[in-house]
């Protein structure tokens, strides 16, 4: 199926993509908003299907009003034919022909289903990539037991289905995201045994200027703090889950206090019984499409690979803008601001006049970015946790590759970089294509070879010529550009 070209294609309908689509469409250009999700909102504003039961948005979602306001205005623009939302469209490839981009999409909630709709190609003159991010993980013994889930996954079950994924929960890892996850679970009936945070927010006191620049974040954190107190949830700072145990199903975790270097102190180990562990160590931006197009990247303060953008959110590739977590993990507020700036900039590039002066937006972006940088420093991954991964621990869940195998690839097979380790012992070669183990494989390999991980190491695990798993049948049915 082919359509006439849109002025702009926005990929992703989370906070950044929605903002970009609205800013561009209100400025007078036509927009295709392409999103893998069934409903708009991305992971952040994922909302339950009506059949899931009644819910109050304020119990699960932050800045819900911004979401409903944006989608209402986008719907009005849709009736006027200026913005079209393509739900359940997974973009797996973008190609350039003449003066337009062709976005090849697999269609459906799970496009691999036999009865999925045929693939679709959407054409546009400009691109805004707002592909978001997913939870970043570190390997530890037992992390593949059923009942161990990413914090974002637990949150998506709650937000999208009002399903609480366990009865007794430990929330662990690092970062401010752990707090809303714990609060949501407690509100919806789980017993949250503990929040286990590897770092301490006291470190924010070292950067008062950045904190005051984004003072609303402080209020947000305080709200979660009060809610946790009300539910009698203890937050243990400078602690980590070092092991999960159970027989085919999670029965509990072992928690330890971390010393100054982030190394678990053996004499502080204790077991906590739980049937759900929600764990996350920050986020990994989703960069498949940016890398396909040849956008320049760099490593951010949090060691994530991110795409380079200029003041207008334009990437190094002509005609391609990016906004949100792919330009640096910074949360939904920053993503929305970046999305608006990108939307207005892309409209200007098409000789349309933006409906709003974006100077205040740029100032806000600066303040939020500064806060994000401090946040990454405060909630960093302790190096010691990576050094201490023992040889038997599974790193690649898909291909079942252990940390010992990675180290043997270096010690016995002569690998000097993560890419070669991947080729020799297969971490990142399975179903998920290194999305889950990529960060850990890069860090473990680099540390084992006695050097720091660099941009090109991360790229080796982020470069995927086909952005999302695509059945051969879809390729066979590919329409002409």
């Amino acid at each position, binding site marked *: 199926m082919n359509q006439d070209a849109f002025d702009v294609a926005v990929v992703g309908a989370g906070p950044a993509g929605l903002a970009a689509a609205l800013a561009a469409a209100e400025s007078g250009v036509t927009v295709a908003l392409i999103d893998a999700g069934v409903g708009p909102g991305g992971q952040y504003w994922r909302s339950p299907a009506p059949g899931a039961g009644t819910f109050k948005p304020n119990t699960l979602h932050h800045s819900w009003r911004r979401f409903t306001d944006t989608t209402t205005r986008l719907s009005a623009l849709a009736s006027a034919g200026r913005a079209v939302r393509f739900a359940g469209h997974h973009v797996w490839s973008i190609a350039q022909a003449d003066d337009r981009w062709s976005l090849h999409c697999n269609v459906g909630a799970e496009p691999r289903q036999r009865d999925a709709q045929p693939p679709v190609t959407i054409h546009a003159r400009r691109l805004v990539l707002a592909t978001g991010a997913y939870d970043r993980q570190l390997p530890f013994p037992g992390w593949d037991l059923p009942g161990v889930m*990413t914090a974002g996954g637990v949150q998506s079950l709650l937000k999208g289905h009002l399903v609480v994924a366990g009865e007794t929960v430990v929330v662990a890892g690092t970062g401010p995201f752990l707090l809303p996850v714990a609060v949501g679970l407690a509100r919806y009936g789980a017993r949250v045994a503990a929040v286990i945070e590897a770092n301490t927010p006291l470190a924010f006191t070292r950067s008062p200027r950045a904190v005051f620049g984004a003072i609303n974040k402080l209020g947000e954190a305080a709200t979660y703090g009060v809610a946790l107190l009300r539910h009698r949830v203890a937050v243990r700072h400078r602690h980590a889950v070092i092991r999960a145990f159970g027989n085919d199903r999670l029965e509990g975790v072992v928690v330890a206090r971390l010393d100054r270097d982030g190394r678990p102190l053996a004499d502080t180990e204790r077991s906590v019984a739980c049937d759900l562990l929600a764990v996350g160590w920050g986020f990994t931006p989703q960069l498949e499409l940016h890398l396909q197009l040849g956008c320049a990247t760099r490593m951010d303060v949090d060691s994530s690979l991110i795409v380079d953008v200029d003041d207008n959110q334009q990437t190094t590739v002509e005609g391609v803008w990016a906004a949100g977590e792919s330009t640096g993990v910074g949360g939904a507020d920053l993503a929305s601001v970046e999305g608006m700036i990108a939307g207005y900039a892309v409209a200007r590039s098409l000789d349309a006049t933006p409906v709003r002066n974006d100077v205040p937006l740029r100032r806000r972006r600066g303040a939020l970015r500064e806060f994000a940088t401090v946040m990454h420093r405060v909630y960093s991954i302790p190096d010691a946790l990576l050094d201490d991964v023992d040889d038997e621990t599974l790193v690649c869940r898909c291909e079942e590759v252990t940390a010992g195998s990675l180290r043997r690839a270096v010690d016995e097979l002569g690998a000097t970089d993560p890419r070669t380790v991947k080729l020799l012992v297969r971490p990142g070669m399975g179903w*998920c294509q290194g999305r889950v183990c990529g960060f850990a494989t890069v860090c473990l390999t680099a540390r084992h070879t006695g050097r720091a991980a660099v941009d090109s190491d991360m790229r080796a695990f982020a470069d995927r010529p086909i952005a999302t798993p695509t059945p051969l049948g879809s390729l066979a049915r590919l329409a002409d550009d």
Partner: protein
Amino acid sequence: MTTPSQFEISFDSTPIPCREGWTVGAALTAAGIRSWRTTRQGQRARGLFCGIGICFDCLVTVNGQPSLRACLVPAQPGDQVRTQEGTGR
């Protein structure tokens, strides 16, 4: 044809309740089921991990088709969900 707001699907021939708009993974989780796949090499039990279509740990067989992501497949009345061993083929 409209989908009723509550219906049943089956997991390894046992009926489990489901709600409109749930994925197969949400229905299994709500029924207290935590794993529905074993890995190809270690025969390790696996279920939901990332919950958003990234990790492929939750692969399951639905209506005879193996290796679908349970976290993404929308559940339909009467769906037959089966445990998947290895590649499911």
